């Protein structure tokens, strides 16, 4: 079953040789972790830009997407336990180099920065297309992504990438082990339950938060990798037609953003701390809260 992207973007010739060479014939398991730099909005009041199409990003702090951080840790733990080469990849502008350096400081072996003005404005399809081209001709036994990203929260890129690579995928993974050419994963399913499944490599797993305890990255750790070379690959390097990616090629158009309509909520108590707490105690008591 071949889908249309193959017709439009021919497979790189090198891909065949990668597929032909199974993990058992290689010395090291190859793990690729796809990561993304995102703004942290958990503690801030979001402000819309005047154009109504974006938010004001001036005062935002950016960091690696939380889910991706667990994915990096999972890859590094596999490397430490049984040996692997781990490569972190991101699609993003100059600033995204930070999250790659952070991944290197956590123990990732290599970083690859996919950067081109033509990539800007890509939707999930575009990002998956770019990642696909970057990954398809590399050795890859295990591809890890975060289950979703904190900014767009689409949860699409991993699944699209798996389909484009035509490798099996499991979402929302909370534990994983690799033995021989097979990974055994635990993942979240409906009803708050978890299931254990096995998949032959190569496979793509999307990682859920809480899978492990991501190691702390110190400033000293970042300094140690400050000079590590991070190759930048552009659309031309990847053999991508710029018309297939970026703003001009989005499948899903973002027409605008707005703040959710307020209201429907109850009373917000005001006054001194003593007054609001007294009011809260009244309401809790009326409702049988104690």
């Amino acid at each position: 079953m071949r889908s249309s992207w193959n017709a439009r973007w021919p497979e790189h010739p090198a891909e065949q040789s990668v597929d032909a060479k199974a993990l058992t014939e290689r010395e090291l398991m190859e793990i690729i972790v796809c990561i993304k730099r995102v703004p942290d909005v958990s503690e801030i009041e979001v402000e819309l830009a005047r154009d109504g199409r974006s938010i004001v990003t001036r005062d935002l702090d950016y960091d690696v997407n939380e889910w991706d951080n667990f994915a990096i840790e999972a890859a590094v733990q596999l490397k430490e336990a049984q040996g692997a080469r781990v490569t972190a990849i991101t699609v993003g502008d100059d600033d995204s180099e930070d999250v790659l350096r952070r991944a290197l400081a956590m123990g990732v072996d290599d970083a690859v920065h996919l950067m081109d003005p033509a990539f800007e404005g890509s939707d999930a399809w575009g990002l998956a297309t770019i990642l696909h081209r970057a990954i398809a001709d590399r050795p890859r036994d295990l591809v890890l992504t975060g289950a979703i990203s904190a900014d767009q929260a689409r949860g699409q890129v991993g699944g699209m990438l798996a389909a484009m690579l035509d490798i099996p995928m499991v979402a929302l993974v909370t534990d994983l082990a690799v033995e021989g050419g097979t990974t055994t994963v635990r993942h979240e399913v409906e009803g708050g339950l978890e299931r254990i499944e096995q998949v032959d490599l190569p496979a793509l797993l999307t990682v859920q938060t809480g899978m492990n305890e991501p190691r702390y990255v110190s400033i000293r750790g970042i300094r140690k990798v400050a000079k590590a070379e991070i190759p930048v690959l552009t659309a031309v390097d990847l053999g991508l037609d710029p018309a297939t990616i970026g703003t001009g090629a989005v499948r899903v158009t973002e027409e605008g953003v707005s703040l959710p309509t307020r209201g429907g909520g109850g009373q917000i108590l005001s006054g001194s701390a003593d007054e609001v707490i007294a009011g809260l105690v009244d309401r809790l008591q009326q409702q049988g809260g104690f």
Partner: protein
Amino acid sequence: MRKILVVVERSRGALDETAFELHSAAKELGEPAVAAVLMGEDLAAPKAELVRWFDEVHVFEDPRLAQPDGDFQARLLAPFVQREQPLATLVPHTNTGMELAPMLAARVDAPLIADAVTMEVAGETAGGHVRALRMVLAGKVQARVSATGGPCGVILSVRPGAFTPLDRPPEAGGTVHSEAVPADVSPRRRFVETVTPDPSAVDISQAEVLVAVGRGIEDEENLDEVRSLAEAMGAEVACTRPVVDKKWLEKSRQVGTSGVTVKPRVYLALGISGSFQHMGGIKGGPFIAAINKDPAAPIFDVADVGVVGDILDLVPLLEEKIRERKT
């Protein structure tokens, strides 16, 4: 006219509530026929129920479909969608739906709108131009998105709970169509087992009063204050996912779509932003009180009473006042 496909999910053998929610969602896209797609084994009962709701019911009955597997589902549904050429395919944005939707979209070359909370057809129905709202940036911003489908239409994954099912089936008298898994498609994932929850774990699902704590707790040590407050109220302690991710509380205390579903009388939310993943686990319309230092936190939209402030300051005070009141 091109039809709308609705992928229905089963949970523990029965039809999932999202099947009926997506039936309502499909009606937002005009008047085309709505066809349910059912996958699994031993499907007599769900099939009989679905014909009362949907114009067509397409059934893939196969023992290999007993366990939901989004990877297998996407590969077997791709040729089916290519044959049906629907205006839109609706998939529940559940754990399995999150696997199925992007893989299916990539395989049939269709745009995917993920986690839609509204949907409509813009302009001429025939054009297949679909618009939807979806939440971004931790639910703080809503984005208006649109997509124009090709031969396989548009795929939308739909947020559970976003649409209200009809009170009773419309008695659609749907036709049943037996479908076969293509010969060249077989599962690539091997089911081992479902993890059985620890029977000795605390059961918050039956608690009348819950004191729930989120990210705002900041540090594990501060949980003592929350435990003490819960004890004063005769309540159980519950929490959000980030608290479990930090291993500060047990998974059995996590309320939400990936945790426990609760139906208390009173829910006191402390330092909880109110993500839909968390709120999705609270059923039965309890009285909700919330304390959060972020006045824009979505929890205040659903709370019956709210206090804007730091729980680290206010929880000890709250406990003190409650103990006073009880004496």
